[in-house]
Structure formats: C-alpha cells, structure tokens
C-alpha cells in the first residue's frame, strides 16, 4: 500500500476526463432530463393541484430554487475537488445582514449589494485560508460554518427584521412576470451564467482539470490556487444571493433561514452528476437535478404525503444514484477507494508527478 501511495499519480490515471467519461456524463444528464419529464407528466396527471394550468407548476419552483442557487456555486467548488460546508449559514448571514442594514435605515437595494459584497469577501477569506495555509476545505468551511451561523444569530437577535418594502418583496420574492415567478427568472440567469463560466471559459475548464488531477493542472501552468479561491468566492456569492431570495420570498429574515439548504444543495450537485471528488460533471445536470428533486418533494407534498416520506424518498433516490454512479465510475482502473486515495494524496501535496504537462482544457466539456 505504501508503494502504491507514493507512486506518481499521473501514471495511474489519465490527465483529463476521457471522451468516454464525457459521453457517460452526457448520458447521465439526458437520463435526468427524461426522469424530470416523466416526473412532471406523472404528477400533473395524478395529483390535482400540481399542474394548476401551468402557472401552478411554475409557482411551485419558488419553494426550491433557493437550493438550486446554492447548488450552482457549490458545484464549482465540488468540481475543483473541494467542498464548501459554509454555504448554508452564508445564506442565512447574507439575508440577516441585508435585513439589519435595512432596519438601520439603509436603502434596501444598497443593503442587498453590501450583503453580497460581504458574502464574496467571506468566500475570498475561505479560499485564501484553504490555499495559503493548505488546510482541507472540509475543515475550514466546517469551522466558518459555525462562525457565520453565530454572527448571523448575534446580528439578528431575538426578533429579526421582517416586513420589507413591497418593491423588494415583489422583485426578489413573490413577484411574477406573467405566470413566471421572478425567482425562476433570477435562477435562469444565474444558471446560464454559471453554465457558461464553467463549460465555456478557460477558467471553468481549469476548475475541472484541478479537480481531476491537481498536480497535472499545476504542471500545465494553471494558477491552481487562484482558481480554487475563485470557486469559493463564487460559492459564497451564490449563497449570498440565495439568502436574499429566501428573505424576499418569506418577507422576513431569520438567523438560520439558509442552514437547512446546504445538504439539499449538495444532494442536487451529486444527483446532477458532479463527481463528489471533483473533476467531472456538467452544470446542465445540476440545473436539471434542482428541478428533479424539487418537483419530487413538492409533488409528494401536494399529493398529501407527509414531509417525512418526501425526505425519505429523496434519501433513497440519492443512494440509488450514488450506488449506480460509483459503479460506473471505475475510471482508469481505479475505484471508490482509489478516489479516496487520490484525495489523500492531494492533501499530502506530493511532488510533481511523472509525465509531460498536458494540453490545457482541449478535452474538457
């Protein structure tokens, strides 16, 4: 085992996702899309009140898009082989910060901008601690999760603000354009932005390469640390936006309003086909998974099932997905253990592996 661990990683796996891996990722996304179609069709027919002439279906999305927004940012971090556990409390803190500034007399949209700027700054701090001091992101964000949660509680106090101006509640919360909820429009814009940034830009491709094989990424001239910090800024920023959206939707801020969004968001990322160890996955999958999971929960609730059974089915769905995906992911002769081992290797910061620097990004989605 010792010999194995010290072997240069580049010998054991290819440097970028192979074409067949990318094909499997595409198939996964297509399968998700089919599942989503079947799901919507089924609930529309079988559950009265679900479809609601189309507008009912659209308004249901308000109940889960906050999870989707966090998932978009979290996907960037996970793609790079890291994780951000502070996204949930970040969302709470952003909502509370905005609300408290507004209560102090600040114009609400200015308060929103300040809250988002603070979110970005905290993401920067997370990223810097992780890259400069070489601490595992799991530990750093676990710690910052507690700090952010405590700050949010202290800021919000016993009676957090509620009853925001109507224009804010309408635009960020419950408003609609025709039958389409504002929240869906905001999500669509954010999703398109993230999908382009990750799928079509050099930085996005670097992110995936970093997650796939960090030494190779370093050798190919990618500024690994800078890119990873960027992912954490993006994650915190998206979490911040989600905190604003949730506060708008409920017309109230709450010290822990975003805390419960973290695990569903990670679920969505993994269900969407992003490898939990990084390197592979498509944002389109994450977007579709947001709706698959969201409509499943809402559909079951509208059908009259208890939230317990909805949660249970979510858990079962995730396990089924993971079991099958991991079964499929025996890439390059490695396996689940291999993936864990790679993570361990990365943490040990092995020296440069064998092999010439790969061509950057030309093989990634």
């Amino acid at each position: 085992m010792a010999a194995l661990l010290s072997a240069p990683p580049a010998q054991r796996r290819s440097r970028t996702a192979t074409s067949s891996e990318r094909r499997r990722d595409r198939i996964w996304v297509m399968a998700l899309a089919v599942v989503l179609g079947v799901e919507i069709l089924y609930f529309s027919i079988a559950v009265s009140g679900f479809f609601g002439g189309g507008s009912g279906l659209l308004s249901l999305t308000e109940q889960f898009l906050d999870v989707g927004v966090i998932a978009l940012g979290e996907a960037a971090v996970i793609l790079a082989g890291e994780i951000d556990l502070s996204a949930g409390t970040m969302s709470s803190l952003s909502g509370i910060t905005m609300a408290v500034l507004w209560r102090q007399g600040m114009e609400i949209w200015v308060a929103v901008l300040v809250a988002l700027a603070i979110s970005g700054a905290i993401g920067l701090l997370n990223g810097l601690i992780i890259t400069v001091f070489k601490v595992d992101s799991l530990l750093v964000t676990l710690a910052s999760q507690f700090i952010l949660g405590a700050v949010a509680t202290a800021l919000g106090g016993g009676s957090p603000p509620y009853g925001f101006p109507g224009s804010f509640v309408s635009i960020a919360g419950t408003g609609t354009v025709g039958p389409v909820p504002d929240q869906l429009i905001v999500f669509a814009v954010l999703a398109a932005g993230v999908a382009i940034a990750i799928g079509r830009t050099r930085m996005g491709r670097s992110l995936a390469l970093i997650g796939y094989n960090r030494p190779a990424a370093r050798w190919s001239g990618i500024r690994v640390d800078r890119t990873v910090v960027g992912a954490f800024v993006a994650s915190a920023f998206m979490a911040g936006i989600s905190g604003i959206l949730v506060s708008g939707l409920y017309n109230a801020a709450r010290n822990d309003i975003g805390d419960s969004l973290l695990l569903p968001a990670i679920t969505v990322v993994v269900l969407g086909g992003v490898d939990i160890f990084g390197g592979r996955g498509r944002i389109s999958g994450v977007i579709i998974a947001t709706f698959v999971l969201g409509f499943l929960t809402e559909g079951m609730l509208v059908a009259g099932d208890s939230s317990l059974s909805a949660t249970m089915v979510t858990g079962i769905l995730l396990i089924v997905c993971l079991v099958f995906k991991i079964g499929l992911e025996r890439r390059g002769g490695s396996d689940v253990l291999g993936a864990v081992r790679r993570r361990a290797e990365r943490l040990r910061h092995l020296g440069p592996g064998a092999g010439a620097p790969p061509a950057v990004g030309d093989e990634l989605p």
Partner: protein
Amino acid sequence: MGPKTKTSTKGDRQMSGRFMRRGALVRLTALLATGGLAASMVAAASGASATTSRAPAKIKVAIVPKLLGLPVFEANVKGAEEVAPSLGIALKYTAPATASAEGQVQIFNSLILQHYNVITLSADDPTVPAPVLEKAMKAGIKVISFDSDVIPAARDFFIQDTAYNTIAQGVINATEKFTGPNAQIAIMSSTPDATIQLAWIGAMKSYIKTKFPHLKIVTIGYGQSNQATSLTQAEDIIHSYPSVKAILPIDGAAVVGTAQAVQDLGDAGKIGVFGIGDPLPNQKYFANGSLQALFLWNEVNQGKLIMYVAKLAYENKLHAGGTFTAGPLGTFTIAAKANPVTGATRNTIIFSKPLEFTKANYKQYDF
C-alpha cells in the same frame, strides 16, 4: 490495485471494451432510476387517492404543529382526532420532521394547493410563514394558530394556552398557602431569554406586588431546559439561601431538577415546590412529597377546542369580541384587542384556566 501502466494501443482496446459494457450499464441505471422513481410515484398516488376518496361534504382541516413527535403536540392531536369525526371534519396531521419554519412553509403551500378549508398551526417562527398564510387566507382558507402564534395579520384566530396572569396567580396562591405571607421564595426558569417564561415571571412579580407584598423572590435560577443543570442550580439555591421556603420551577426540566434536589437534600415537605409542567414525568416526586403542585392546561382538551374553533371559523360564526360554545368544553371569549395582562393579542381565544395537579389527583392524567 497496483499501478497500471499500459501501452497505449492495448490500453485503448481494453478501455473501449470496458466502456461498451458500461454503456449498457448506464442505460440500465437510467431505467432503474426511472423505475425506482415510478415506484415511489405509485406510492404517492395511492396516498393521494386515499385522501381524495373521503366524503366531499367534510370540512378539510389540517393540524400542523412545530414538528412531528413532540409529546405536547401529540396530546393536542389525540384530542383533535377524538372530536373531528363528530364535527364533520376530515383531519390531517402533518408537520416537518424537525422544527423548521421553511418546512412548515412548504407544507402550508401544499395544503393550499390541496384546497384545505382550515389550516391550524403552532408556528416555528412568527414571521417566516406569514406570506404563505396570507396567501392561504386570500384563497379563502381559515388560518388558526395555537400554542405559538404568528404575527396577527397572518391568521384569523389564535388559541392561547392559558392567560399569563391566571397561571401566575395559581402558582403564587398555592405557594402562599404553603409558606405564609412573609417568606423568601426562589424561581427556577429555563433560559434568561425564553419568551413565555419571562412573561410568567413578570406576571408573578406584579401579582405578588399587589397581593402578597411580603413574599420576596430572592433569586432566579436558570436550568437551560436541562434536567442535570436544573438539579445543580436548585441545589445551589438551597445551599446559598437557607431561608428559602419554596422554589417555583416554571419549565419542564426545571420541575424535575428542583424536585430531585429537594428530595436529595432531604428537604421534602420543608421546602415547597410549586411549578408549571406535566404531571406524568413527575409522579414519583408527588408520591414522595418533594413536589407539592403543578399547573398546566389540559393538552388533550386543547386539541378538541382547536377542532371546534376550526369548524366555527369555517362556518364564519366567530367574531372579534364575541363568544362561542365549544360543546362540553364550555363557552369561550374572543379578545377584540391586545391585552398585556393576559398576553392576548387581537382575535385571541384563551383556552383555559390552568389545571392544578397535586398529590390528590396526579394519577388521573396521562400527559
């Protein structure tokens, strides 16, 4: 498990063979995932048909406590289920698995889409569910809160457990009977910022001031809603204030901790314990004399009242300032405006005078 180094052609051939098999596997996965989903959908569908096959003439009422499985709410639901059939109510008990305001919002939203007639709830948060409840009221659904209120604009009626002043008077009167009018007493609470405990302490202080000015509250201990902490705190009080004649625990854990402390230090009967809490967890302290009296409302009957109010609200028979009769439970008044003495806000129905549990009657109650 060893490092694999292959020549490129051989490797590619092996890879493609493996991936062809995997291609089939992917398709199988997709099929199975869809199948699993379909199965859960069938389950969901059978649940749905069970709900819709109920007689349409019944009033559809949902009871949504803070979370599933808490004994106080289970007692409420037990009472509600007892009377629902006779009132023509189809009752649904649903709640989040954890005390989550967002979870409640999701449930309220689904109840609106299922065209419920009445939603009754104990709110996890006073403001977060307000928009969705206002939406429900706009859709013609009656919204009734109990135990923990939402902001008054987001509900039609609120059923308050008991008036702050009456429960405070009950506890103080019983204490004074035990200690006499010139005595030192202490209070055991949960945390310094617990809303309802603060309200009770305030009501007790103002009652003492007017009625028994020579009763003196020497200290307030905080047990953090934890039995072990409550026990230590109560022992500290007994050691530090030897002239204390009675301790008043006003939180479930504080009752157990205080009675245990009095028992352990051999002060049963010498130091009186008068508190607010359930009789069932404290039976042994009643039996051995280390607990004199507890005050609480009857939670099962409260569940029944929720159903009466739901039916009458659905029939538009309830009005601010008016009264109504809830079968054998008696006549109730609907407060027209806020009253800081009782704790009532607009359209509040105060459920009951507190019940007193003593050594004589504690065995009759199973909550």
